[in-house]
């Protein structure tokens, strides 16, 4: 190393002398030869500088305390995303098994058990609804799993039509007549209760239909899980390796999904029922999972998922997440760390959500102020994520070339 440095130094001195001569105005008219020589000198200089810089970094050894995006991806990918897909897949498997049990001999007990399994599967789904990237995106699975409000007319037509009911038949249906919301429609009757639900299952076709729905869902869940698992599709490796800074990098994709889910909760799950798209006319039937009455619990799952990814939290372990990223780049908001502002806003949302005591579809009219409050808190989070966080990531997320701001 030392020898190398001395050699470089010697080279530098020679070069400096030589080039000093070269740039002395020897003749009034510089000729082509000089220009060419000058060009070569510049090239040599560049080379020399590069060598010098290389040797410098070699000597100082390892890099400083820069933020490592691949660590963030590694943590979120391995400890949050992959387990979440695995649990979802398990829950759809349980749901399918229970549906088959129910199909053998429909009873109120088995119906309740099936309903509970549906609730579990749906809650687990809300934990992965954010990861519309990789397998979920390529398989276009998002809407096949959950597209609400479900199309009850289409479902009844699908059951009553002449076609034989099978998993393949379900796969051929439009997304608004399958997936979790369709199963919910078949399993829950908010007005007339479980007895009425059981009565509808007097039809064998209806029974086959719900089993096929569960089969279809389970197949999708297995395939998504396989797509992420290291031993099969291993999108995890791809996800972790895309640790760059461009619009297609995982950090950007994930940050975007974080925002998309927040916006979806705000607009679709709360805003539309509140009448935010219908000139103030409330739409309780557009509430997610109103038949089972668990909409707020599902929103809570979404918020937990957002919180986990933001903090890099899995279970009780607080790993590297976006909060650490923001702290590393010293992102500020109103004089305090931005990470704290966002964390506080997530808490505000949870508080606002817990302040609603009734199921969401009833709260729209009975607890309008509380629902509006939840909506406003969600809006504040969107602003923080979409402007402050994205801006502070320093990633210059662009969709084409950029030289503007």
């Amino acid at each position, binding site marked *: 190393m030392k020898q190398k440095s001395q050699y470089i130094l010697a080279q530098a001195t020679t070069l400096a002398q030589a080039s000093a001569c070269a740039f002395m105005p020897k003749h009034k008219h510089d000729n082509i030869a000089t220009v060419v020589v000058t060009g070569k000198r*510049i090239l040599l200089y560049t080379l020399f500088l590069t060598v010098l*810089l290389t040797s410098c970094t070699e000597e100082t050894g390892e890099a*400083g305390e820069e933020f490592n995006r691949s660590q963030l991806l590694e943590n979120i990918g391995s400890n949050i995303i992959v387990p979440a897909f695995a649990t979802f897949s398990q829950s759809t498997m349980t749901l399918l098994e229970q549906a088959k049990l129910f199909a053998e001999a429909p009873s109120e007990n088995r119906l309740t058990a099936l309903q509970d399994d549906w609730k579990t599967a749906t809650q687990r789904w809300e934990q992965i609804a954010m990861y519309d990237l990789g397998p979920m995106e390529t398989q276009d699975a998002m809407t096949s799993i959950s597209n609400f409000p479900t199309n009850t007319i289409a479902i009844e037509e699908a059951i009553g039509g002449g076609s034989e009911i099978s998993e393949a038949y379900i796969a051929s249906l439009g997304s608004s007549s399958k997936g979790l919301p369709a199963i919910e429609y078949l399993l829950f009757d908010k007005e007339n209760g479980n007895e009425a639900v059981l009565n509808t299952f007097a039809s064998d076709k209806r029974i086959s239909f719900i089993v096929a729905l569960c089969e279809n869902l389970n197949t999708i869940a297995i395939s998504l899980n396989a797509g992420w698992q290291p031993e099969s599709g291993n999108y995890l490796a791809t996800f972790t390796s895309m640790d760059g800074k461009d619009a297609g990098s995982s950090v950007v994709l994930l940050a975007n999904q974080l925002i998309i889910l927040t916006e979806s909760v705000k607009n679709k799950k709360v805003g539309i029922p509140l009448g935010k798209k219908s000139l103030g006319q409330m739409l309780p039937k557009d509430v997610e999972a109103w038949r089972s009455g668990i909409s707020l619990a599902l929103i809570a799952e979404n918020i937990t998922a957002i919180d986990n990814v933001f903090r890099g939290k899995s279970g009780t372990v607080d790993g590297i997440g976006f909060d650490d990223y923001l702290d590393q780049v010293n992102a500020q908001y109103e004089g305090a760390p931005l990470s704290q502002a966002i964390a506080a806003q997530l808490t505000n949302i949870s508080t606002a959500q817990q302040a609603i005591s009734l199921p969401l579809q009833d709260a729209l009219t009975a607890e309008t102020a509380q629902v509006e409050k939840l909506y406003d808190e969600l809006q504040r989070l969107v602003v923080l994520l979409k402007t402050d966080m994205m801006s502070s990531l320093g990633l210059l997320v662009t969709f084409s070339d950029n030289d503007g701001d």
Partner: protein
Amino acid sequence: MKHLLQRINQPTSIAPLIVFRMVFGAVMLVSMVRFMLKGWVYEQYIKPQFYFPYFGFEWIRPLPPAAMYAVFVLMAMAALGIMLGLYYRWSATAFFLLFTYVELIDKTNYLNHYYFVSLISFLLIWVPAGRCHAGRRHAGRYFSLDVWREPASAYSQVPFWMIGMFQLQLGIVYFYAGLAKLNADWLLEALPLKIWLPVHTDLPLIGPLMQYAWVAYAFSWFGALYDLTVPFLLLYRQTRPWAYAAVVVFHITTWLLFPIGMFPFIMIGLTLIFFPARFHESLIDSLKRLISFVKHTLMRGIMVGEDTDHGDGRMVSVFTDHGDSNEDTDHGDRKQALSPVLYPHKPEQHSTIPGLVSSQTGTVLSPVLYPHKPKPAALSPVLCPHKPEKNKAPYAHFYQYVLALFFVWQLLFPWRFLLYPGELFWTEQGYRFSWRVMLMEKAGYVTFHVKDPATGGESEVSVSEYLTPNQEKMMATQPDMILQFAHFIRDQYRQQGIEQPIVQAEAYVTLNGRGSRLFLDPDVNLAKMEDGWQHKSWIIAKQPYTAAQAQ
């Protein structure tokens, strides 16, 4: 004044223009192909349902999809034409018109370097860069297909202004970009580089440095100093090599750090115009040698055992040996060197060969040089602004006035921001077309609220239903775009039967990493606001930040 006129009309070698033309054509050709390959024609000009035209250019609309692609293919062809010097003036005109048309469709896609490309292609229309032969040492060796087609139309010299105006244009870009950097955030806070650089710690060599604030300061100050001085340093022989090295280093650095597209390469290529003619002549010679080498290698490959001389196709030989000799370059070179009468080696004689060059017009049109066509071609008015009085057509001076106006406008237009109250970076009134490049980190989020005054009903608009993510992002920080979209919403609701919809924008913006805050007056009914040059009073003035916030 007279001296100045003499100076700008002084005949000078056309060589820099040839290189300039070829570099511009080549980079544009690559740009156009790249643009199409990246799918941006679809993303930017076919997919959107709504466009943000420029004020006063609302009549400019995108064409149907197939025609939009055709426009880009035509632009690529025009760029090729510019590069090869084929139907040069048509190519330059077509390129300017098509490119400018495309840029005017949607503000979303505004980039300073697109503006720059429009301006350069406009200027290229006025110069005979396609009617050139390569000058002194290799007179008679053309470097343009137009001249190959019509040798008599060639010039070896042009008045200096034809080169100087490109230098001036580049100088304006740099200098104004430098002026724009002279603001408190850039110089005193090293913002936004302090936000952008730490992301690049993974770069080889320089990466680990990027986390330090002093590096951001160094980049900021060097950037400003570079922009302000480089056009001047490029003008002088002593400083030029260093300045050009700085150009290369600066632009490569920006290319590594930012998603800035083709801009660095445009600038690295075009700033060569500051080098003297000799440099360009030798560059052209090298290129010719390269082409002839490639050609010979190819020929050897094809015709085994045959002599490489002669027999090569005309098309292949265009760049190397066309003109008064049909022999191969190597031979031609030697021959040429042996003809001291026509090609004196003393440069000063070059421009004063009697009968060959008019020092007034800077035009070379000697039948001696072009034995194929003894008849002198008609003098182009473009080339001869100062032809004797009697010949002065009414339009002879026209283009010079146009160009003078063009530059006066360029010098003045970027200052219009001074006429608006408020902070420029916040309001963006007078921001575009002013060489403000990579100056701020700004992000916004806007929610549109629509009210029906008849019923009191209130809705929110899903912006993403109408706009692409890029449009949404660009609109969120730019008041004029928000206003345009508000008008679009107003019209949508009118169509749905709400006669007087009230459209309000709840917009939050963060600038240079300071906390997001309300951007526009959320109570103003944008449906009733007019777009225009006047100040938009509904932009909330940016309050000064406390020290703690400004970290």
